[in-house]
Each structure stands twice: as structure tokens, then as C-alpha cells.
């Protein structure tokens, strides 16, 4: 054991240009780390990278060394000249001699996380595990002495920046990972001793470092707003600071920006591709280093995180505790630094996101899944216990739920589970859950696209919206996007039965229900037949060799190119196949190669109920000590990845679980 806990040796924030934007070192932790390594007598072991510096563990690398090591890792090229020539002759003037250079970028392409033929011993991808994209090793080169490795560096990419957090680990775990990096065999399994899983299990510090990196990422992207709580009557309510300012008597500031959960563009993962959405956000936004520095002093003054709640840490720092009373009889939780004073009420919001893959095929079942959260805002004085019975868990087929750390959840029994919690101040996510969609999908139907020629396609939508949804379910808006990320749309023809159509360079958008004219209490049918014309394809093979892993290695032999039309495959398949030839490999963070498919993405927002059917009864809430506080519950569902796969083309699937 590493002594448990999580202590951070250093934090770096790097820009995409491989410069250090921010760094922080914790001399206290560093000293403890050195002491533990010296105590373990590191360096005597065989094959130790620490080399000559046997007795003294290596110094924490300087910023520029980290930047260089990280740049090196990102751009690690395994460039390999490949001379294609006839079998014997060294050079034959009559024959073409082709030289390719294979480029391979470990940091960004799929290379890291999966061992490929180009992975080398000692690199993270050799370990062959996706987690090594997030827990990385850095090889520090020293000019004057032997280089060394630092591990585990927890990496988060946020807002264009790379957040690197290096927690302190014991030498045993470090060496175990080093062994994994250098074992010569074909790859480890979880059944072996010293496997990566057991190393990670023994190192809570990595988990802690993740949370540190995560909150730092939130700070640098400005993503520190509290979760949204919707009020049925009136605008959204603010967060902790509002409660504070209200209770202290400072004039209320403007409402905090609530995350636009249901905006059409926001989704769990954008089908257009994470890379693009990243670039859509524009360049690198500078972040407030002062803010970050102060947060770190408050959250982890000596390198050991105490509280990673941004709002709490900053409000303690800025507000202090001038007039706040203390509870008389019990301990006030550390995550509730202030007590509420004022009119009492308690608000709940159920926010659900539905992901769907609709195929309209007999052989492939549709996939629908709801992930939801219940957010809460308890404006209650003192430290009352709130008990909230959840009913209908089994009816809603709730698969999994997890709770805020203030919650003590009973074992779910008989369709029922009771949550008891002492609510923190401000908005918080009381629980998360996963459930299937327990009513008919709000948008169903099919999308067909058939390529008439290489540059022209005919499409047809036939959709039913809100079938079976009764009031108060209201669909606030609904839009359908047909992305053609690798074609440029020249024009389209056709008129939908309802709604308006617009066109962008790479997509066609169909607004069926516009915001402001919600659809409630009735269902509608919408059809949209039409054609779309594309500009002729230009070969875009440039730079693909850099992003994708060794396109050459797998390059089809030109000899074996074959006209598939002959083989009876449809024109669609033929065109898709041609298009897919220069398809880039996606990152491991993407769920699938979106660009390989034709599909339509549906965006909508529904209020007035939950799709899972999981609801709370505000009346059954119990507060102890008893106070008279009205309880409200609001519900909202929005679309995440809600995809209509082209019925006539290829589509990705996943098997549904079967019982063993």
C-alpha cells in the first residue's frame, strides 16, 4: 500500500504549443516522496531507470523538461523508411522504388491505449490499456545525467489545455508499472500478478489526482457553475453564492449562468466529432491563474486535497465567516460551510438525457437509454435531515443509481429506496441514475438515404413525434440534422410536411418544432422526402498520414483493388466503401467512427415529465426537525445522442445483454 490517501507532488498545465501555462509544486509532498523512496532503498533493483542516481531519487523535473517530455510523447514518431523493391535487386532502375514514411502519433491518434505493431517497449501503448491515455508516463531527458520516468501523470485535456497532475506513489507501485512497460511478452491479462488493474486499485492517489485534474479543468474552462435546478414557476434559481448573498444581505447579483442542458448542440458526445467541436470553441481561452492559485491554496494547501468543491473553497476564501453561527449540538459538515437563513423551501428537478439508436430494421432492435439526475436545492435553516423515499424503482427499471456524498441510501427493497440526507447549501446533484426509456420514444420513424450517383442522394424521413405523450408533456423544440461531415452539400430539394429546412456546408437541418411553439397533448406525423446534391469529392489525403496510425502499414495493395460493383454490392455500398478508404481512425474517446455512416441526429427537449417514469413525490418528503417548507419537483428530458440510422446503409450496432 502506498499509505493510501492522495498527495500531489506537482501540477502542470500545458498549452497545445507545449509551453507550460501554469505549474505548482508541493515541496512538502516532494519531501515525503523522497523520504519514502530513500527508505525503500530504490536504485538497488535491477533494470532501474534511476540508474546512477541510486540513493537519491530524481529531482522533480523543471517545467521546460516536462513540456519537452510531453511534447515528445505527443509527437512520438515511429518513422520508418520502407523501401519497396523487387525481391532481390538492391536498386533496379527499371522498377519504381517507393519510399514511404510512416508517421505515428501516440498522443492523439488511437495509438496510445492500444498496442499496435508500432508500439515500442517502454511506451504507454505497450501496456495496451485505454487507461494509459489518462494515466501516462513521461520520460524526462536530462542533459547532464540519465533520464528518468515520472509516473503516474494524470492527464486531462480541457479547453485546449492539458492538465497534468502527478500524485505521490510508493516505489513498489512505480516499479510494478515499470515492469509492465518493459515486459517483453505479448500483453498482460488481469489474471496475472502485478497487472495494471491491481496497481490502480492500490493507488487511490490516482483517483484523487483525477478529481484534482477534473476540477482544475473546470476552473480553466470556466465550467464551475452549479448544477441546474429548474423551478416550475419563474426562472432558474441561483447557486450557493445567491443563498449566501441573500442571507448575508448583500444585494443579489445577476443570476448565474445555468448550463444549457437542453440546447441542441450540447450532448454527451457530439456526433460531429469531438475534435471539431473542440475547434468550434475557438482558440485557447486564457484562464485566471490567480483564481486557480487561490483555489489550490484553499483546496490543497499542502498538496493533499481537502475539499475539491470549487464553490465552497472560493466562497470561504472570499466571504469568510464573519456572522455565520455554529450549530449547537452537532458537527457541521465540511462540505456545508454556511448555514441557510431565510424563507424555507426545497426544490427538486429531474433532468434526463435520452440516447437512442433507431434502426427501423427487423434484425436490429432499437436501443434507448435514459441517464438522469435529480438535482436539489434545499433552502432549509440549520442542519435538518431530509428523507426522500424513491418509489417505482423497479417499474422504472432503474439500472443503477449513485448518490451525493451527503446521502445515506438504504438498500433498495421492493421497488423502494429511502434517501436520507443533510442537504448542502446551493444546488447539488442528489442522485444519478440510468434507466431504459419506459414510454414510446418521443421521436420515432425512419430515415432513408440512397445514393443515386456518387454526388447525389435521395432521402426520405417518416417520423412520428410525441405519440402516446399526454399533457403535461410538452416538446419545446425538435430539430433534425443530417450531417455530411465529409461531403460538401451543394443543394437540396424537397419540402417537409411540417417545419422549415436550412442548409449548412456540411449538413441539412430540419426544424420540426420551433422553440416557443411547443407541442403538447397531441402527436404529429412529419415526412420529408427530398434529394441532396454534393460537390464532387476532392481527395483529402493530406495530413491523414499524421493522424491515423500508419496508413501505409495497412495500405491495400494496389494490385488487389477490386471493383466491388461487379460483386453485386449495391451502389451505396460501393460509394461508401470508396469514401471510407481515407477514413481517419477516431480517438478512443469517440464511441464509433461517426463519419463512416449516414444518419440523422434528432435534438429535442421535453418538459413536464420523465421518460424513465421515475418521479419523486414532493409530498412524501420528510424533514427532521420538522419545518414547514414547500417542496417542488420539476421534470425535463432532452436528447443526447438520438440517432436515426440510415435504414438503407450500414449501421453500427451493439448486442443486448443476455443472461448467462
Amino acid at each position, binding site marked *: 500500500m502506498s499509505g*493510501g490517501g492522495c498527495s500531489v507532488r506537482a501540477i502542470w498545465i500545458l498549452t497545445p504549443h507545449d509551453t507550460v501555462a501554469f505549474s505548482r509544486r508541493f515541496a512538502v509532498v516532494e519531501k515525503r516522496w523522497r523520504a519514502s523512496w530513500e527508505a525503500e532503498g530504490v536504485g538497488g533493483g535491477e533494470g532501474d531507470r534511476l540508474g546512477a542516481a541510486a540513493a537519491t531519487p530524481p529531482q522533480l523535473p523543471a517545467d521546460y523538461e516536462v513540456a519537452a517530455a510531453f511534447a515528445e510523447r505527443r509527437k512520438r514518431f515511429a518513422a520508418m523508411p520502407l523501401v519497396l523493391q523487387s525481391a532481390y535487386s538492391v536498386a533496379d532502375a527499371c522498377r519504381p522504388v517507393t519510399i514511404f514514411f510512416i508517421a505515428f502519433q501516440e498522443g492523439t491518434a488511437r495509438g496510445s491505449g492500444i498496442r499496435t505493431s508500432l508500439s515500442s517497449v517502454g511506451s504507454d501503448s505497450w501496456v495496451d490499456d485505454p487507461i494509459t491515455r489518462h494515466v501516462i508516463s513521461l520520460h524526462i531527458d536530462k542533459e547532464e545525467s540519465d533520464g528518468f520516468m515520472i509516473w503516474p501523470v494524470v492527464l486531462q485535456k480541457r479547453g485546449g489545455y492539458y492538465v497534468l497532475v502527478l500524485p505521490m506513489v510508493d516505489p513498489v507501485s512505480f516499479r510494478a508499472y515499470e515492469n509492465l512497460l518493459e515486459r517483453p511478452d*505479448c500483453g498482460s491479462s488481469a489474471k496475472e500478478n502485478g497487472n495494471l488493474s491491481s496497481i490502480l486499485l492500490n493507488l487511490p492517489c490516482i483517483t484523487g489526482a483525477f478529481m484534482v485534474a477534473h476540477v482544475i479543468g473546470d476552473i480553466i474552462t470556466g465550467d464551475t457553475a452549479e448544477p441546474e435546478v429548474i423551478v416550475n414557476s419563474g426562472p432558474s434559481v441561483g447557486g450557493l453564492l445567491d443563498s449566501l448573498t441573500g442571507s448575508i444581505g448583500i444585494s443579489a447579483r445577476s443570476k448565474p449562468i445555468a448550463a444549457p442542458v437542453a440546447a441542441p448542440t450540447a450532448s454527451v458526445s457530439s456526433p460531429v466529432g469531438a475534435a471539431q467541436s473542440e475547434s468550434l470553441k475557438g482558440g485557447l481561452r486564457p484562464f485566471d491563474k490567480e483564481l486557480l492559485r487561490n483555489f489550490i491554496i484553499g483546496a490543497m494547501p499542502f498538496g493533499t486535497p481537502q475539499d475539491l468543491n470549487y464553490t465552497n473553497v472560493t466562497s470561504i476564501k472570499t466571504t469568510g465567516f464573519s456572522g455565520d453561527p455554529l450549530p449547537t449540538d452537532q458537527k457541521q459538515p465540511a462540505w456545508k460551510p454556511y448555514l441557510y437563513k431565510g424563507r424555507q423551501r426545497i426544490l427538486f428537478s429531474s433532468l434526463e438525457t435520452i440516447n437512442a439508436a433507431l434502426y427501423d430494421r427487423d434484425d436490429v432492435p432499437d436501443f434507448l437509454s435514459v441517464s438522469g439526475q435529480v438535482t436539489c436545492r434545499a433552502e432549509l435553516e440549520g442542519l435538518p435531515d431530509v428523507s426522500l423515499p424513491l418509489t417505482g424503482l423497479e417499474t422504472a427499471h432503474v439500472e443503477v443509481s449513485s448518490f451525493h456524498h451527503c446521502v445515506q441510501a438504504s438498500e433498495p427493497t421492493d421497488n423502494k429506496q429511502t434517501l436520507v440526507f443533510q442537504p448542502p447549501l446551493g444546488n447539488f446533484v442528489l442522485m444519478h441514475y440510468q434507466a431504459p426509456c419506459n414510454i414510446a420514444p418521443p421521436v420515432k420513424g425512419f430515415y432513408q438515404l440512397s445514393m443515386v450517383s456518387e454526388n447525389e442522394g435521395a432521402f426520405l424521413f417518416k417520423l412520428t413525434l410525441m405519440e402516446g405523450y399526454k399533457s403535461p408533456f410538452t416538446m419545446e423544440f425538435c430539430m433534425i440534422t443530417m450531417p455530411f461531415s465529409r461531403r460538401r452539400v451543394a443543394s437540396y430539394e424537397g419540402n417537409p410536411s411540417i417545419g422549415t429546412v436550412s442548409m449548412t456546408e456540411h449538413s441539412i437541418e430540419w426544424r420540426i418544432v420551433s422553440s416557443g411553439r411547443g407541442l403538447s397533448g397531441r402527436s404529429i406525423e412529419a415526412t420529408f422526402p427530398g434529394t441532396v446534391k454534393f460537390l464532387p469529392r476532392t481527395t483529402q489525403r493530406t495530413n491523414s498520414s499524421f493522424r491515423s496510425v500508419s496508413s501505409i502499414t495497412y495500405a491495400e495493395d494496389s494490385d488487389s483493388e477490386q471493383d466491388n460493383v461487379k460483386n453485386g454490392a449495391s451502389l451505396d455500398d460501393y460509394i461508401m466503401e470508396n469514401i471510407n478508404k481515407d477514413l481517419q481512425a477516431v480517438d478512443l474517446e469517440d464511441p464509433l467512427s461517426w463519419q463512416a455512416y449516414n444518419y440523422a441526429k434528432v435534438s429535442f427537449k421535453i418538459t413536464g415529465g420523465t421518460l424513465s417514469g421515475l418521479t419523486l413525490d414532493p409530498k412524501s418528503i420528510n424533514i427532521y426537525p420538522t419545518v414547514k417548507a414547500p417542496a417542488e419537483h420539476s421534470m425535463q428530458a432532452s436528447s443526447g445522442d438520438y440517432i436515426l440510422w440510415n435504414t438503407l446503409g450500414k449501421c453500427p450496432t451493439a448486442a443486448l445483454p443476455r443472461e448467462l
Partner: protein
Amino acid sequence: MDRPPPAASLSPQEWEQLLDDFASSSPTSRRYRWLHLPLLDLAVSSLPRRDLPSHLKPLLLSLVDDHLLPPSPRSLPLLLNTLLSFPADHPLRDHLLTTVVSAFASALAAPVSRDHDAPPLAALADALLVAANRPNHAPDRAARALACDALRALDAALPGLLADALGHLYALAAAERSPAAQSYLLLLASAARHAVRLGRLASTASILAVAGPPTPFSVPAHLLSAPQHASAAPPSEVNLRDIRKVLALLMDRPQVLTPAAAMEMTSILAEIASAVLEWAPAIAAHIKVQFGGMAYSSSPMLLHSLLVLFVQFPDAFGAQDERTMASRLALAAREAHRPLPVRLLALHWLLGTGRFTNLVPGLARWFYPSIFDPLALKAKKLDCLAYVTAGIDGEKAAGGRDSEQLTGLLDDGLSCVSAFRWLPARSTETGVAFRALHKVFVGTAPHSTDDTRCGGAGELLNSTIFLHVQAILVEMASDHRGLVPVISEFTNRLLACNLHQWAGEQLLRTLDERLLPRLEPGYQLASYYPLFEKIAQNETVPQLRLIELLTKQMVSLTKDHGPDTELKSWSQGSKVVGICRVMLKHHHSSHIFLPLSHLLVLTIESFPDLEVRDHARICLRMLSCVPGKKLRHLMGVGDQPSGVSPSLPGSLFDIPSQRPAQDSKSMTDLASYIHLERIVPLVVKQSWALTLPNFSVQSRPSGYILSIQEVSSTPSEQEKPTGPTIERIGYTQETLRVMDAKGAETLQILRRYFACVPDYLHSSGLKIRIPCTFRFDSEPFKHVWGSDLPVSGSDGADELPALYAVVIAFSSSAQFGKIPSCHVPFILGEPPGSGMDIIPVDNQNREESSYCASVVIELEPREPSPGLIDVSVAANTENCQVLSGSLKPITVGIEDMFMKASVPPDTPKEGVAMYYQDLFHALWEACDSSSNIGRETFLLGRGKGSAAINGTRSVKLMEVTPKVLIGAVERYLASFLVSVAGDSLVTILRRNGVIKNIVWEASVSDASVGADALVPYSPDSNLQLQLIDDDDIRVGSGRYGSENKRDMGCMQVMIFLPPRYHLLFSMEVGCASTLVRIRTDHWPCLAYVDEYLEALIS
């Protein structure tokens, strides 16, 4: 800008500059100029300054935090004073406190020096304790919490610093109700942990006992001396009670802690509790009750903290808890709201402890990847499914599980990345899918494990899952040609692994059995070549099917060949031959001989592409000529070592050898164990060569014969000699000359003769052959090269090292023309101690020995002179190394140039001796400088060139007995002897019987004037010659002059020196000495002749 800053204090601008320099991410050069300053002191003392802008001050503290810690202990008092004198309500106070405490904690280590470091440390701890010791004081709760954290940091750096104050800390933590309680609890926990580590529990004094108020604080004694080993004695009863009291307080309400603090707390609790668990087993149950609820938390930190406890206290958590934990982890990975790394971690935790091993299969349905899971998560879930599959497979072997379930599980899992079948082979989906297949393999047969149940090779081989994966791969390869390289890489990965090599081999065999019959010849077959190559490389896979398919392919290629498909035919044909070549290398030729030779013959006979035919021919020759094992080593040249990542489409293509061809260390001493030696040793042991820079035919074409000049165009005008040329030949128009009959006869002889001498400038000249032997010593060779030679088996010859394709190249600075290189296809090393003598080898018969090859160096001298021939050798060793380097040079002596003069073809056999004698006389005369033949030119044979004779004379007195002389002549000059005169000489020589076919002249009378008699028509010059001779004798060896009786007879020796020169000896043999009269038309050779003659008789 680089002006060194002043030392006293820094202005705001200078601080700005300094901060900028420290923040720059360029290498440290910019920082260096500041480092001579006491930066820490300056920064700290600048804090109270009013002239410093307020935004700078926090930056100064951050500078200290990041770059100036740990400080030297000398700075500590200053830091302490700054802190103590700092206004308490200053916004920077917290930061300063953090910095100062960090400085103390990082600078000090036990033992603390009592005089220097202990007082400030005590003062700091005192100040912090004073701050902390105001429980439930509301407004400064943040400051009190920070003081607790600071004390905890000090306690961690100096273990046991607060061990004596544990009682106070307990009281404070118990009393505190504000949110700062968390800091008090953590401080108590940390101090208690160190008390436990120090072995305080064994003491009979209560750990919670307090002697007085917490302040004034003094540094405990154990920190002032060297650390002692903690006692491992069991805890005393009182302390057992006390520590339980402490634990009870710590565990009272973990809900009040933040997740981060809970993580710290659980780690400390785990340590303390396990230390006393033996005496207070109830603690574990208590832990479970208090922390078990965390399993439902959204916070990954809490989840992991609970896991730490779960692993640490196995007895506290029962089977039900195990199930709960395992399913919570499996489900956590399904929660879409969690960040991806956390979802991955949850699965890792599930697989990370053996406690879940039996539970994981039951969770299989939770591992089904969903369509919108990120690929990383799909990959990890597939890992889990593979784990389940492997587990069930083992179970099934033990008896009773449905194999369909098993294979279904894998198929279901793979379906989430099923796109890999139609996406390009480089797609991420493909990577994930094949990774999953690999995980199934290593899951079923892990590399190393305690569990002996799995891990056997046979287990996997017979397992349902292995059969199934093979079926999948065959299907994939057959339906999706694009995946073939990936499959080949996949097998490669297995083959490269020691443990799974057999799996890879089995896979190849399966592909051979099931895939190959499905494949049709045609251009599409090219997609499968990578796989074919893998099959060809593997010795365990029978090759017949492959050869058959390739034969069909060659037939098909030949048939489809047309004007448009030239390149295709070439490319595909070469690749097929390439595969054959791979096959040759890896298989015993006898196994594949028939079908492969059939394939090659077919290719040679009918394939449309010339180069492919050529290669096939080479392959066939190798197949039929070189024995298998050697062949394989030989062909290993240029191949990659069988490493783990031969990522390239393979050795279908020649890839330049990755081994450095020149291993300079081992090359330098090649000459010491590889020998090229002359068969016939030189008479002249030490050789030297007369170097005449301009004396070269090539370099002075104009000075010679007109016709030659016209023809040879290459030499440039600048190279024309400016110095004196020795041979001045009148090539201008012939003047009228008076010629007597004898002279005419001489001319005629010479004309006839020269017509037989090849015109070396226009056609190839006469060649000199120097037979040599080539051999090398086994032992030193092995020593240098053979460390990795495979130990071979049966026959003794195999134990000797061998060289292949030895190319011996020659070069020389002497005028030997272009010397063709020699080739030795194969040679074995000379066994040690065999005592091989040099075997005289006839040129024609090269197969003398397999240890020793005969090599003939062929020279085409442009000028007869001795010289050195530099020898360089290049060869392949058995283990594919290329050996090259130079050997000892070969010495060429003048005697190597000796040839018999050519005889016109129309000369009758019995007339040869006569002809030689006539020629001797004619040349003898022509080489007389006074001869009027000197202006004559003679046309050379078969060419336009002609020669002129410009003679020189010399004499040499050899003080030897006739016996020695005759012996030497018989040995070395027999074939050049033209005539012998003089009774006694004739008698001796005839009796010896060595000399044959010459003119024997009995007349002794001639002998005394032998030389003169040759030139009866120029008595003057003859006389003159004699005078000179006599002078020489007189001067050189006066004492012999009187008794010099050259009475035995005279021998005439005529030597042809290529390309067209001659050396004539007339040896007047006497009893005590022999006078050799020498004439030559190539004066430089006289320089060597003298030495040669000396050597003859020595």
C-alpha cells in the same frame, strides 16, 4: 537586460523581470543570473514593503512555493519572524503561512538539530497550536482549520512531532462543531497514526495523557536524536482503550467529511485499525458499518476509499458485501455521467482484486458495451467479457457449461465494434476488436499466475474459445481481405511471445487448413500475401497447400498477363517468389523440394516477367545446390531479426540489413584468421617495387606508338610525361637503313615473333596467374563471429563455421591492370589443429578440400614489375552477418612475371627449341644498344600496335659453385632455358634430366666466347662489352678476376615479361663463380633481377 541585478533588494520592475524569467518555459539559462541572490530572503522580506504593488506579493510567495523550496535551514528563522510579525487579517496571511510551513516541513528532517532548527520549529508549532486551540470560535474557523492542516503537514514531515500532544488534539477534535472539524479530525488521525508507528501503544502510559497545556510547545526528544526502531510489542491495555476511543471519534460521522478528506481519513484509519486489529477485532465491523454506505456514492474518491477498506479488512466484509461492491463497480462503469477515466478505473478496480474473481462472471450482462460507449470503454468492457469468457472456459473444462453461451458472449461483445469488418483496417474499431481477441487468449492462458489451474498451453489449445476465435479469424480473413494484414500482425504478436508462440502457430496451421482451400488464384490473392509469408516463415506449418496455391497463382498470373498488366505481373510475381524465398529459408529443403522446385521451374519456364524468372532461377539454384541449414543462414541476410514488431508488410521486400555491416572491432583483425596465401612462395622474400610515376603505358600514350596514341583517347594531355622517357622509339617515318643479311634474318625472326605477342593495348594482354589458397581458422573465427551461431546437430562439418559467397577483390597500385575478383561460394572453417599444410593446387582442380579453396589471381600486367596486391574480402556468415575487410596483401615478385615467349603457331613441335634459340640470339642482338635494329618497329599480333626494342645490358657475378647454380636453374628457370653449351655443363644437366627440349651445344670452344659469338657482326661493341664486364669484375670483385674461369659452359635463358618485354640471361658457369650477362628491352626490370639472382642462389 542581462545586467546583474543589485543584491540588496529588488525593485518592483526587477521582481517582475525575475518572475518572468522563472515563468519562462525555456531552459533555465534565464534563471541563472538571479540564482546568486538570496532570493528566498529577499522575497520574504519584500512582503511587508509598501512600495511593492499588491499584485506582486502573492506571486512572490508562489515563486517561493514553486522554485525556492526546500530552503536552507538558515532561512527558517527569518521566515518564522516574517510570519509572526505579519498582520493576522492580511489577505496574504494564509498563503504566507502555507509557504512558511511548507518551507519548514521540506527543510527539516529527523533528527532536528537541537540548537539551530529546533527553536524555530518549536516556535512555529507553538504559534499553530495557539491558533488551533480555540475550539468553536466561529469567525476564524478557516484560520483554525488551516493551522490544523499546517500542523498535520509538519507532523507528516517530522513523524511524531505531535505525538505528545495527542490528548489535546483529541479534546479539540471532539469539541469542534464547525466545518473546521474535518481538519481537527484529520490532524488527530495523523498524529495518532504516528503515535502508532512510533510504538507508543506498547507503553503503559496513556497516549492521550496530557501533562499540561498544549503550549508552550517543545520538540519531542525522539526527533532530536537519530530515529530508533519502533518497538513491535503488543499494545498495553490502556492504550488499546485509548486508540479505540480515538478511532471511534474519527469514525463517528464520516458523512461530515468531504470526499477528498474522507480518502485521507480512510487511509489513515486503515493503517491504525490494522495495527490494532489483532487485539480489537470489532473495529473492522465498525468500519464496515460506518463506511459501507459509500458504495452508493457518486464520488469516485469515496468509492475507492471504501475499496481500500474493503481490501484491507477482508473479514469485515462478507460475501454479500463482496457482491454489492462488485456489482456497484460494474454498474459504475455504465453510468454515463461519470468521466470516462473514472468508468475505466471502476472496471480496473473490479479486475484488480482477487476477491471478485468468482463474482465477475455473474456480472457479464453489465459488461455488454453499449453503442454510445466511448471506444476506450468498449475496449475495457471487452476485457471484462474476455475475463469472463476465459473464466467460464476453465470452468467448462472442469465440467458443464454451455459452450454456445461462451462463444455467444464473445460474439456479442465484438458486435459493438463490428464495423471493423468493413471499415479500413487502420480504424480504431479494428484495434479494439483484435485487442479483445488477444485478451481472450491471454485471459485463458496468462503469462504467469499463482493459479495453476489456468495457464497451460494445452488448456487453451483445446478450449472452445480458442477454436471459436480461430473460426472467427478464418471467416474474417476469407470475407474481408482488408483485414489480412491485421490478422497477420495478430499472429505475429502471438508468435513473438514465448508463451503464446504455440497459439500463433496453431492459428497459422488452422489458416493453412481452412483458409487456403477457400482462396482462388487471381490478382485479389495479393491481399493474402502477408499471411502467406507468415505461413511460409513457420516451420510447424506444412507448406504443401501454400505451394499449391502459389503455383496456381503463378499459372493464373501468366494466363492473365497482357500489355496492361505488366507491372502487376511483375509485382505479384516477385512477391510470390519472395514467399518462396522465405519458404526456402525456413524449411528443410527436402520437405518442400519437389513442389517448390515445380513452382520455380514453372515460373522460370513461363512467367512473362524477366526479373521474376531471374529470381526464380536463383531460388531454384539455391534450393537445389545449397544444403538446407546453411541455406537458411545464408538467406537470412537482410532479414529482420525475429523481433516483436516486424510491422512492415514483411520481408517480401529486401530491407537493408539492420545490422551494421561493418563491425569495426571484428573487422580489423580479419587478416589474423582469414588467409589468402600464395601457393608458390616467392624466391625473393622481401619485395620492393620501383615506382616510376611516369613510367606507365597509360600515362604516356603519345610518347610511344602513333597508332596507340590515336586509339587510346581516355588519358588526358596533362598526364603526358614531361620528364625523360626511357624508351625513345622512333615512330617517325622509317629512314633507309643498310641492313646486312644477318641483320635481315634477325629482323625477320623478330617480326615473326612479335606477331605472336598480343597487342595488349588493343586487346587483352597476356595474363599472369598466381595460384593462392583461401582458408580461415575456425577457432578465432568462432570467437569473433560465432557467439550466436546456432549449435548445429549431427554431422561434424556443421560444427565448423562456414562462409558463404565469399568475394575476394583485389587492387594494386602497381601496373597490373584490372584484377578480376575471385568468388568462393562456400567454405568451411579450418578445423583447429588440423595442421593443414599448403596444398599445391592445380588451377583446374579446385575441389581440393572443403577447408581450403584455391583462388587464382589473374594479372594482366602493363608493366613487368613486382608489387603488392591489396586483398579485400566480403562474405556472409551463417548467421546472416556480412563480414568484410582486408586481408594481408599478396606479394607479386618479378618472377611471377616470367613467362615463356610465345611460339608462332606454325612452328613444328620439334622446331621449338631451335626457334627459341634463334629468338634468343635475335633478341640478344636487338637489345644491344648499338644494334641498328633499335630503330625498327615490330607489329604486334592481332592489333594495330607495334613495339620497338630499346635494349640495355648488365652483368652479374654470382659467387656460387656450379652445383648450387645448376640446382637453382633447374628449379626455377628450367622452363626458360633455351640452350646449354659446354661439355661439362651439358653432361651435368643431361644427367639430371630436368631440362628437356632445349638446344644442347657440345662445343666448348664457343663457350668462352659464347657471348661474343652471339654478335659476331659487331665485334667492336662486343669488345667494349667485355671491357666493361671486366671492369665491373675488377672493381666489384677483384680477387676473383684472376681466377675467373668460366670454363664449364654457358646457359642461355630467355624470359618473356608481359606485356611485351624480355629478359635474357647468358650464364657463363665457372667453377667458383658464374657470370651472368643480362640483356633486356625493359631496363627497369634490371633493378629486380639483381636481387632475384641473389635470391636464387642463397
